[in-house]
């Protein structure tokens, strides 16, 4: 082997050693967990779905703007956890994203627990909306997250289904419901 080849080999080994030190435990890797982008897509789909619903439009025409409380997300995910803090932040984000469509037909309000827990955490940039006491909601937006997940030698996959429903707090009738589906896959690598 020529000196040049040895040089190249040593250079490669050194490079491998150098880059081996880069990349953090939280900076690399693919997760099958629901991301902020999924959340945004979900909220956009919900906003347009609710606005386009003839039933919702009829009730708005009859009763005026709907005062809706966004209830905490119910975790029915398989093999996944949704910590309380994250679930609350998620609920608040959904409310914020729905509020962006300023149609004047809805007043979105966080549920009491979420509102005060998030306010206690003083999250910067989080729009908490009106205080629950200031609005007397008549409707509730409820979200249930379900998933079919699998984790084996090849990787992890999860098929998520988020079911949203707008329900009357008076008589429990469901005014609107929609489903958001997403599939996520993470392929296992050599050292996983």
């Amino acid at each position, binding site marked *: 082997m020529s*000196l040049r080849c*040895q*040089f190249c080999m*040593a*250079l490669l*080994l*050194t490079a*491998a*050693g*150098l*880059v*081996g*030190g*880069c*990349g*953090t*435990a*939280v*900076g*690399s*890797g*693919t*997760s*099958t*967990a629901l991301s902020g982008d999924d959340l945004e897509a979900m909220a956009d789909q919900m906003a347009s779905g609710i606005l386009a619903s003839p039933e919702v439009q009829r009730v708005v025409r009859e009763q005026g703007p709907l005062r809706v409380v966004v209830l905490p997300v*119910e*975790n*029915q*995910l*398989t*093999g*996944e*956890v*949704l*910590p*309380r803090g994250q679930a609350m932040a998620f609920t608040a984000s959904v409310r914020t994203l729905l509020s962006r469509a300023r149609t004047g037909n809805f007043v979105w309000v966080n549920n009491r627990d979420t509102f005060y827990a998030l306010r206690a955490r003083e999250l910067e940039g989080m729009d908490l909306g009106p205080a629950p006491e200031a609005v007397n909601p008549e409707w509730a937006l409820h979200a249930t997250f379900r998933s079919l*997940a*699998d*984790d*084996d*030698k090849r*990787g*992890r996959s999860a098929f998520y289904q988020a079911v949203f429903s707008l329900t009357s707090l008076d008589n429990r009738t469901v005014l609107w419901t929609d489903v958001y589906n997403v599939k996520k896959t*993470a*392929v*296992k*690598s*050599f*050292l*996983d």
Partner: protein
Amino acid sequence: MLRLVLKPPLLLLVLTLATLAGIGCASNRNERAAQRGVSAYFAGRPDLAVEILEPLSHEPDRNYVLNNLRLGQAALAAGDLVTAENAYYRAYETLNAAGVNNQARTAATVLFNERVRIWLGEPYERAIANLHLGIVYYLQGDYNNARGAFENALFKLRRYAGDEDAEANYEEQESTFAIAYILLGRTWQRLGREDLAQQNFDRASELDPSLRALADSELHAGTNVLLILEWGTGPQKLPEGSGIVFAAASSPLLPQPRVVVNGRPAGIGELAVPTIDTHLMARQRRWQTIDTYRAIREVTGKGMMVGGVIVLDQGMRRRNEDTALLGAALIGLGALLDASSAPDTRQWEMVPRTIYLVPLSLEPGVHDIRVALPHPYGYGDLVQEFRNVEVGSGRETALYGRILPGHAGVIDFALPPDPVRGP
């Protein structure tokens, strides 16, 4: 002399060594600190361990998952459920991701030193991590998240089942971890799904017949207190040649806890059985691909050293400086590869040897519960006391005890939580 040092092979050898030393430097400081935390934990000061490990748990280095698991266990033992949940959740997120060790890190692991990889633990460590996350949620009454974590614990064992006859392999893996099914069953009951609870209890009995009495749906439905007790120390990883072995357990037998409620022995009989043996789980180690690379690295390193001596000898005989330097560089690199073929023995030292689940049916009111288990090395008994436990009607009371030598082992619920030492 200066001319010699600047020759490319030597220069690169020095660079390579410096790089590897550099990678290790900051991590070594953190590792020493982490070891102090582990020592504090085993000395019966989980609260001090939490204090030491908390800052390390936010460092996204190669021990990120390991330090979070250490912190989670210490916080759980100290009764600090918020810290425990956060730490276990951080570990959970990384353990659930794929490709955490990127290509460069993988290459460095295979070519140089496997300690540069981000530690993700053996299958049994991952399973216990998820089980503990589930226990933390269960203790807080967050049954949906507890269920998710227990299910994920079972996934973590499946990930390492062999390709051939996957179902049979799943069964073999899960047979040592039927506790997850029992806890899943009890959690489903708390969520009002008796049908799913029954399925999980049946699965637990099927996988481990010694747990049949404990995996009884009626028993769990009729009890309002659950003691989760952890005893002993988990397996110890040791290097052996270019491979890894697990040290033998101090005793093949696992003891039965004695539980006394308000001064009277609780009639728990065959319920107080060990549900797992982490020493047994560790021996089912299936993540062995890297062992082959380690052996190759060792052989290559030795080969390079021998080759280097020959080249160096030739260079000196022919008075060819370049050849001599090449030989020296080969010897150096060979020595480096040989030295780096030492196996990665990092492990989650705090894993218990076994876990006991003791369901009790107690009248609403305030109770004192005392649990005694023998010292792992035979120095009398280790005692865990739960004083002034409030049992309400129609709700579950779950209590966790990590029975450690040197640990005070008294949790008094009548006292206000100590901000430093936990409840």
